[in-house]
């Protein structure tokens, strides 16, 4: 039986708005996925806990504040501590190109920068999650 992919769309840190997160959440939903949205200003602990309790296949992080180099490694670390490193993590938002190699080195699978069509992110998830 085909099951829906479950995605947690999460906003770590102190961003003031979440329009981008909502747009991408909507795109995932329209592609037939179950999207759990947790709202603004989430700590890495909250995000990892939600991902585990919701048993998601993917965590999609959206960040605009510039704190990605601090927050993303924390999230990856916590996932490892909880034995949940099988959850795929992708990210999007205002992330400078020069930070991408570091973020990938800590385990973020793919990063979508401004201007990427939502369909790209959707395709990436469908291709990389086994259902």
């Amino acid at each position, binding site marked *: 039986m085909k099951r829906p992919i479950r995605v947690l769309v999460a906003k770590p840190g102190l961003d003031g708005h979440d329009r981008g997160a909502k747009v991408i959440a909507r795109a995932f939903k329209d592609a037939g996925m179950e999207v759990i949205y947790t709202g603004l200003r989430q700590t890495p602990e909250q995000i990892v806990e939600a991902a585990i309790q919701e048993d998601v296949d993917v965590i999609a992080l959206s960040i605009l504040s510039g704190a990605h180099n601090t927050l993303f490694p924390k999230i990856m670390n916590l996932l490892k501590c909880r034995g*949940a490193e099988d959850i795929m993590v992708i990210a999007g938002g205002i992330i400078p190109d020069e930070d991408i190699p570091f973020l990938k080195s800590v385990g973020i699978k793919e990063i979508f920068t401004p201007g990427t069509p939502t369909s790209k992110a959707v395709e990436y998830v469908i291709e990389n999650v086994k259902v």
Partner: protein
Amino acid sequence: MREVDLENLLLKRDKRAIAKAITMAENGDTKVYEMIKNLYNNTGKAYVIGITGPPGVGKSTLTNEIARFLLKDNNSVGILAVDPTSLFSGGAILGDRVRMSDIALDENIYIRSMGTRGKLGGLAKATRASIHILDIVGMDYIIVETSGVGQSEIDIVKASDTNVMVLSPDMGDDIQAIKSGIMEIGDIFVVNKSDREGADKTAAEINFMLDLNSKSNWRPPVLEVSALYRKGCDTLLYKIKEHRHYLEKTGGLKERRLKNLRWEILEIIIDNLMKDLSEKISQENIDELINTEYAGLTNPYMIAESIYKNLKEGFK
């Protein structure tokens, strides 16, 4: 995860194991039913609270407040929050957690968002199995928050011990209030957002309606609450406990659970029948029959009768 490991981890209330088990139930993985069967002796201890009402009345915020109070009293709490699945894409936005972030990290809580996945009635297909799972792991309370309901989604009453119907001020005139359906299934009525104008009037209307149809010895109380400003939630919790005592004292709890069990058994049988049916008869089957064997016939009764007769033969 192997099933044996999963069973052991469940009994240790491991959150990842709970999550995996609920996923299995959601995806119709039959191994989870074997597990529930094995561990069913552990059920019956959790008290199930239903939170239901139309969209946007504040069910999630209220659920959060009730859970906060229960946690403060050293209870463990499982929350199942249901939101609708799109009929068109099969996808869903499950946003109930947004209102629950302040309790989500408590070690005595487990919160799960569920899409309805085509099930009507306010619950998801796997909600009942998930209630059993949370019961097995030893949650003291299970709060089931339905998807936003209209006038006929009342499945929650068949799955809960105490059902809280949440409304908000100015929800409609007296006529709306006497309508059957959701107005008949509250053990407790809450007029949330009581900081807004019209709360007294809505409460008065509900009270009037309840006075007309009070047949049982439990007269549902009507409470004005503001979940956002945390006003009246303590009274609500007190009333939930009062209802529980009432049920336990009068034997009503046993009766209600028996009734719910009957519903559940029937539902499982119907589910299985539907599964068998959909294997035997698909949209394409019907199209084919319409175009060939029954070509020229437009009468749905004749076609249906004929198909049904064949099916019945098949079941024998």
